[in-house]
């Protein structure tokens, strides 16, 4: 079988170390064939890696190059071409920095003094295999996203026709219907809506997971959002026979958030509160905490068992008193809320006492925190 050709870029300024690597790769028979290019500056390495035609398979990187310092060189090389794995070669004494390099995007590290001869080729081959596996995973995730978006479109179209046919009959547009017919069609309508919600939720989860949900962050008034949500939900509160109460703190500062997404969170929390509250009230309260604004939705419902608390924000978990699913939810609502709030650098949690009701709270930061650099995926 023909040996695989592996193209290596070696960034190293020490002549002895350069020769050492050369000797290991070419001095004795190896399981793969190597092509080696050596540079002695990080700027030259970045230039080589940015040149897509060069098609390196892997970079071996010394952290002591004269035109950069330590970890920064890993970041620069990684940034130049994130698709190419990096193996860091350190001096004998700096183990810590090797681990730090891995946190900053290196695939592995080796100490030049310790068994380099034995480990170098194996480490290179391992790094390449791992990169291959990572690429496959990434591809699979992309395929899944694409698949879900197509499926969602294909599901929505027939649902639209179903929903509209039922609605037309229910609205009496196709002639008068009796109460029994109406109650049957009401069930159909409710379940069509449920299916539509499920599709939306699955898409939302997928978008959040892939980091593809866009957030339109604008300085806005949380009280206005609460009032608006309250207004739109007034009729379902009435239907349910539950009082929907607003307690707003008029002195709240405006903060940056995505109005549509926070509306979605609040609507979800209130819908949940309705589901588990047979009678009494659901109270929406806004207030200020330390560097945060806080919104809470409390109900006088059945409460949540302490042992179920950790499951609350997990996907596809649904709580019901009797252990059976009966609320008609998707089991995704709270998981979506959590992701949305976390994207806002806020926090969401629940407090509850059996028989007395539950309270769901979320906070949004008042000051913009320092920009946290997210590792490129």
């Amino acid at each position: 079988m023909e040996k695989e050709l592996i193209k290596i870029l070696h960034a190293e300024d020490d002549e002895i170390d350069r020769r050492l690597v050369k000797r290991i790769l070419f001095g004795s028979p190896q399981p793969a064939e190597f092509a080696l290019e050596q540079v002695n500056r990080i700027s030259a390495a970045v230039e080589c890696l940015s040149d897509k035609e060069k098609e390196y398979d892997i970079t071996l990187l010394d952290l002591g190059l004269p035109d950069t310092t330590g970890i920064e060189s890993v970041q620069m090389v990684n940034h130049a071409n994130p698709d190419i794995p990096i193996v860091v070669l350190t001096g004998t004494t700096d183990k810590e920095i090797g681990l730090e390099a891995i946190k900053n995007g290196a695939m592995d590290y080796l100490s030049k003094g310790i068994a380099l001869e034995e480990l170098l080729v194996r480490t290179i081959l391992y790094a390449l295999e791992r990169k291959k596996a990572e690429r496959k995973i990434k591809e699979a995730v992309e395929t899944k996203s694409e698949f879900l978006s197509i499926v969602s479109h294909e599901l929505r179209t027939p649902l639209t026709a179903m929903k509209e046919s039922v609605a037309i009959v229910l609205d009496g547009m196709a002639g008068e219907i009796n109460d029994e017919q109406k109650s049957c069609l009401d069930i159909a309508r409710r379940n069509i809506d449920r299916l539509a919600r499920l599709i939306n939720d699955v898409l939302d989860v997928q978008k959040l997971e892939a980091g593809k949900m866009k957030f339109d962050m604008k300085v806005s008034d949380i009280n206005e959002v609460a009032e608006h949500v309250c207004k739109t939900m007034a009729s379902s509160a009435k239907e349910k026979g539950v009082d929907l109460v607003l307690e707003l703190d008029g002195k709240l500062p405006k903060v940056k958030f995505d109005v549509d997404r926070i509306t979605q969170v609040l609507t979800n929390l209130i819908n949940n509160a309705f589901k588990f509250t047979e009678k009494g009230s659901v109270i929406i309260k806004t207030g200020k905490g330390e560097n945060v604004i806080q919104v809470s939705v409390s109900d006088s419902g059945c409460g949540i068992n302490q042992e179920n608390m950790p499951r609350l924000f997990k996907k596809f978990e649904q709580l019901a008193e009797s252990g059976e699913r009966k609320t008609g939810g998707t089991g995704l609502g709270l998981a979506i809320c959590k992701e949305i709030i976390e994207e806002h650098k806020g926090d969401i949690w629940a407090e509850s006492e059996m028989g007395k009701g539950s309270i769901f709270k979320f906070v949004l930061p008042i000051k913009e925190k320092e920009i946290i650099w997210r590792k490129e995926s």
Partner: protein
Amino acid sequence: MAKRILIVDDEPDVLKLAEFRLRKWGYEIITAFDGQKGLELIRNEKPDLVLLDLRLPNTDGIEVCRQVKNDKELKHIPIILFTATADIAVAEVAKEYGADDYLVKPYEPEQLLKKVRSITNQ
């Protein structure tokens, strides 16, 4: 006089039902199954409103919208994008191509009524 609405959608069931509802609400309806026929009707009939699906055979909805909104004679005709695709930012697409509003399928009949009414004043 009843306002005239053009519905462009390649899904016959969806089209038929929207047509049925809007007729009952007192609108005059004309329909097209693809973008090319849609454009032709927009040019010849100058409807008071177009309900335009995005994924259409021949010329897709975005292209229809773009052509209408870039045409001096036609750009006053209001367009509501009418789509089952929720994974793209429909709001953004609508804004970019000058559509007047959008509605995601499956839609709430009240939403449809509200949007159609406010645009046609009928």
